[in-house]
């Protein structure tokens, strides 16, 4: 019989509300009544704590599930595992033995914790996301981190800078010791994030298809005894209520919430990764089926109930056996705390001793980390019941499908009506000076002060590093030609004007970025960061963003398997991103795209390579400066004419660029997006390491047909590509572009004169020595992430 219940059934709404708030639960009264109804009685403290976590927005997707299911394509021939588990999986190369090499990807947010405790919040963000990939049996080969911070020059500038620095430190402080290279990321600063930064994290891993582990008790448990082993850090009360906290507004009770931020430990994670590998090898050698799951939101209770439920079994957990940190914790804390660096395993009885030996003796966990280790905490039951015992008390007992019951809401939506206007252009302005302002603005300037804090070389697979190209590229398989390219994107300024375009353009840009290095866009993940979904305008922004993502995935499609969509295999929804003022962040869908390159040796950096080469622009500038960096920096306005995603154009351009790579033509390639054509040219001239020397002279007369002013041609953020190709193949280039129906402009020929010049009908509008551009571009973020220069 269960003991220690919370009275719900016989109480009125007011009393329930009081009980819930006094005990720190976020469940609504209706939800609490539903819990009692499911159980057929009052819930115990442990039970209501479990539901409080499982029914949080973070875990349950209760507001978003329906929209996601309706709008996002998740199936394609390359997909092994779509959304629903810890990570998504696609095949990317056939192995010599007929097996498949698969890419595992997971994408999450750690926004609220990072706003309160930037270092710990960001570090545990990395810690959590790599665990999602490790737990599929994969080796983690990289992380990426899209970040959004407040305006460094704004009202809360000092705080925004402190948060930005703390977050970067935290990512470095976890990823570097773990030995996982940073493959890329992006940073956007805007006052819209002053009260609520965004720290999104992506982890990617490699596993052979036959070795994928599942987060479930194996079928073998039907005919032989299975035990549940808990391994890792000793359980404490850190992160208790973390998932529920992530689903609240960031209001004033910051101090009280700090305890909900978990404590990171990459060292233990690294040792566990090695020990886990030995366990997986042992299981494979013995031919034993095992289940493996990371402990994240909801801790022991969520992980073990989900594992058992997925396998169609039940489980009894004995809390007294859990290895604890110093201190005594009530059963609800031990069951549900989110202590980091822990995994749960379901292993057959005959394997238990060997598994314990690997963790506790071979890798000596109890001695290298105080209180760490592996212990048997539970028994798998044939009866589908979920039970937690503490001493001789039963603190939770219910049919397992009751414990894992989902919850869903239909949220109302209402379009947000904003007033957006185009600025009047001032023809007397200096193009020379304005451009220096644009490329030194923190949103455009080099992020080398950030990238160099991260280990981008560890594991020895790096081909193109952060900043060197539009996508980070690795050579994942020893002795094989295949390359993998990764990019993360999401421009919030488009979404403020039009949330549909915000979603659609994020997919387009991410796909374009992997195509720029010659890789075929093969899957995406989405992390959807919005405000409070109970507000109708916010939910409208969310559903418009998702609609845009879905349309873009179908519109661009899976180029390697014509007729199929670009599949979404994993993702995350983060609502309630707003601060004390109640103002939601800009709609911020962030997309990670994975590209597969048939030959990584053809993946090129953006930097111009050879004098005499021809520079082409694939695309056409339109009057689309809404949300552009130029309007924001020079005119202090967003404008109105946001780029409109044209999926057929995007697809044709992407195919063209990939074909150019396959033909071996491409010497350098860069997409035109934030900052427009001129910014892209300057970035190619400077190069990611700041070592570029070559110059270019561009005459805008080429674009006379567009009827646009020079500023609009140079700064429009209409998507396209710039490519450097060898001279003498112009006829082939034109034929390819005609065949794919893409527009092409020849911009000029690279010269040894280290200067970028813009002309109109032969008359010079402006020119910049490359050194001048380099200095302001490379130095633009020093004030935020670096120190005053000395020497």
């Amino acid at each position, binding site marked *: 019989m269960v003991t220690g219940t919370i009275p719900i059934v016989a109480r009125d709404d007011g009393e329930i509300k009081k009980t819930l708030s006094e005990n720190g639960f976020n469940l609504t009264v209706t939800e609490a009544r539903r819990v009692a109804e499911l159980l057929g009685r009052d819930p115990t403290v442990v039970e209501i704590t479990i539901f409080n976590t499982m029914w949080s927005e973070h875990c349950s997707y209760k507001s978003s599930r329906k929209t996601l299911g309706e709008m996002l394509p998740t199936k394609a021939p390359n997909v092994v595992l779509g959304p629903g588990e810890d990570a998504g999986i696609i095949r990317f190369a056939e192995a010599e033995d007929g097996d498949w090499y698969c890419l595992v990807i997971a994408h999450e947010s750690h926004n609220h914790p990072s706003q309160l405790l930037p270092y710990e919040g960001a570090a545990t963000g990395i810690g959590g996301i790599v665990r999602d990939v490790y737990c599929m049996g994969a080796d983690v080969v990289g992380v990426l981190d899209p970040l959004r911070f407040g305006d460094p020059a704004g009202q809360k500038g000092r705080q925004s800078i402190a948060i930005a620095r703390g977050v970067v430190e935290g990512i470095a402080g976890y990823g570097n*010791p773990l030995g996982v290279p940073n493959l890329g990321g992006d940073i956007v600063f805007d006052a819209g994030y002053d009260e609520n930064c965004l720290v999104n994290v992506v982890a990617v891993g490699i596993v052979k298809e036959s070795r994928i582990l599942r987060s479930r008790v194996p079928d073998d448990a039907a005919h032989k005894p299975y035990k549940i082993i808990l391994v890792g850090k000793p359980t404490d009360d850190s992160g208790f209520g973390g998932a529920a906290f992530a689903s609240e507004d960031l209001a004033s009770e910051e101090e009280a919430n700090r305890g909900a931020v978990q404590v990171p430990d990459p060292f233990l994670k690294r040792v566990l990764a090695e020990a886990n590998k030995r366990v997986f090898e042992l299981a494979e050698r013995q031919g034993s089926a095992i289940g493996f799951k990371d402990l994240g939101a909801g801790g022991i209770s969520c992980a073990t109930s989900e594992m058992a439920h997925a396998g169609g079994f039940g489980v009894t957990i004995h809390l007294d056996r859990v290895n604890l940190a110093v201190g005594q914790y009530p059963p609800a804390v031990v069951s549900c705390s989110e202590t980091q660096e822990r995994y749960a395993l379901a292993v057959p009885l005959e394997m238990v001793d060997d598994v314990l030996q690997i963790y506790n003796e*071979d890798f000596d966990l109890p001695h290298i980390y105080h209180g760490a280790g592996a212990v048997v905490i539970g028994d798998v039951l044939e009866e589908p019941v979920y039970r937690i015992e503490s001493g001789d008390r039963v603190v939770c007992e219910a049919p397992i499908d009751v414990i894992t019951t989902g919850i869903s809401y239909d949220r109302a939506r209402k379009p947000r009506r904003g007033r957006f206007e185009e600025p009047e252009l001032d023809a007397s302005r200096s193009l020379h000076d304005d451009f220096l302002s644009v490329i030194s603005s923190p949103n455009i300037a080099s992020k080398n002060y950030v990238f160099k804090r991260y*280990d981008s070389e560890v594991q*020895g697979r790096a081909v193109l590093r952060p900043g060197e190209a539009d996508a980070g590229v690795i050579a994942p398989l020893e002795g094989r030609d295949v390359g993998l390219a990764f990019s993360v994107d999401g421009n919030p300024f488009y979404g403020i004007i039009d949330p549909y375009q915000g979603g659609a353009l994020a997919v387009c840009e991410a796909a374009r970025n992997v195509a720029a290095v010659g890789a075929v866009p093969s899957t995406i993940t989405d992390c959807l960061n919005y405000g409070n979904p109970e507000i109708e305008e916010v939910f409208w922004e969310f559903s418009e963003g998702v609609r845009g993502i879905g349309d873009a995935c179908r519109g661009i499609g899976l180029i390697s398997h014509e007729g199929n969509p670009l599949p979404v295999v994993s993702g995350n929804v983060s609502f309630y991103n707003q601060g004390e003022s109640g103002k939601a962040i800009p709609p911020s869908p962030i997309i990670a795209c994975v590209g597969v390159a048939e030959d990584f*040796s053809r993946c090129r*950096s953006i930097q111009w390579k050879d004098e005499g080469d021809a520079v082409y622009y694939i695309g056409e500038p339109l009057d689309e400066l809404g949300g552009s960096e130029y309007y924001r920096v020079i005119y202090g306005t967003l404008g109105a004419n946001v780029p409109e995603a044209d999926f057929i154009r995007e697809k044709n351009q992407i195919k063209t660029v990939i074909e150019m790579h396959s033909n071996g033509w491409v010497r350098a390639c860069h997409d035109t997006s934030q900052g427009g054509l001129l910014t892209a040219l300057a970035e190619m001239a400077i190069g990611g390491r700041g*070592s570029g020397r070559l110059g270019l002279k561009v005459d805008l007369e080429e674009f006379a047909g567009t009827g646009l002013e020079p500023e609009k041609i140079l700064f429009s953020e209409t998507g396209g590509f710039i490519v450097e190709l060898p001279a003498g193949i112009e006829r082939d280039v034109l034929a390819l572009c005609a065949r794919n129906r893409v527009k092409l402009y020849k911009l000029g020929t690279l010269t040894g004169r280290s200067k970028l010049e813009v002309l109109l009908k032969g008359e010079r509008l402006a020119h910049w020595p490359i050194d001048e551009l380099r200095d302001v571009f490379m130095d633009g973020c020093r004030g935020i992430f670096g120190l005053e220069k000395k020497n």
Partner: protein
Amino acid sequence: MPETFQDKVAIIQFPGVNCEYETARAVRMVGLEAELFRWNEDPHMLDHCSAVILPGGFSYQDRIRAGVVAAKDKIMGKVSELAREGRPVLGICNGAQVLVESGLIPGIHWERVDLALAPNIMADREGYYCTWIYLRCEESGCVWTRAFRTGEVVPMPIAHAEGRFAITDRDVLGEMEKQGQIALRYCTPAGEIDERFPVNPNGSVSNIAGVCNAEGNVLAMMPHPERATWLRQVPEDLGGPWGGKRTSSSGDRNGLEAEGPGMMFFSSLAAKEVDE
């Protein structure tokens, strides 16, 4: 099974190191056998190993100071014994920190800690720093740099927060110089020694990037040769002869499998084995 490491290069896996696999790959690339040795296995298993490498990472979480806990680990007694017998020992990054903290480097006074690897000092930033730098191979009797010409300049990646060679006793520095123990220095692409950042990326005294013992069989180096073993690992935009070689091999899959600048540390070891 003490014979496990017979004629193999042992790569010591302390808890928290993270470069052991690519280091093993680099050793195998020059035709030698490499095997991981978990720190708490029987030290006698190493009796007949051909060489020892302490790879990079964060052994024991950099508790107290980088390398200091591992330096006191039981297995370092065996490594010290092998080093004294003349067995080649290489410490890369965190491994270099372990060698310094255990007194094997510079090894002028018996197991006394004469050097430190202190927090980086940089002109416009602080903390961990990951980039490519240039190294000049100095005149020394080091077995790990035999494949280089004296004065040869090569690019190499670094990634550390505590890589500044520091020394309080000027006599020890003088002694190190006299005995040819400064095997590697940070330099410009043209090979000049400029003490300023970013040529000297961490503020090391005398631009020191790597130190060997007087006998030349033990080397502690901060740069990561295992991350520069193949040409494909060299950045396209690096410039200089190696960057040029990398760029002109783009699109040539086999060309990129050619050796990178870091390979020579491992081929130095292979050459030594042939000599003996």
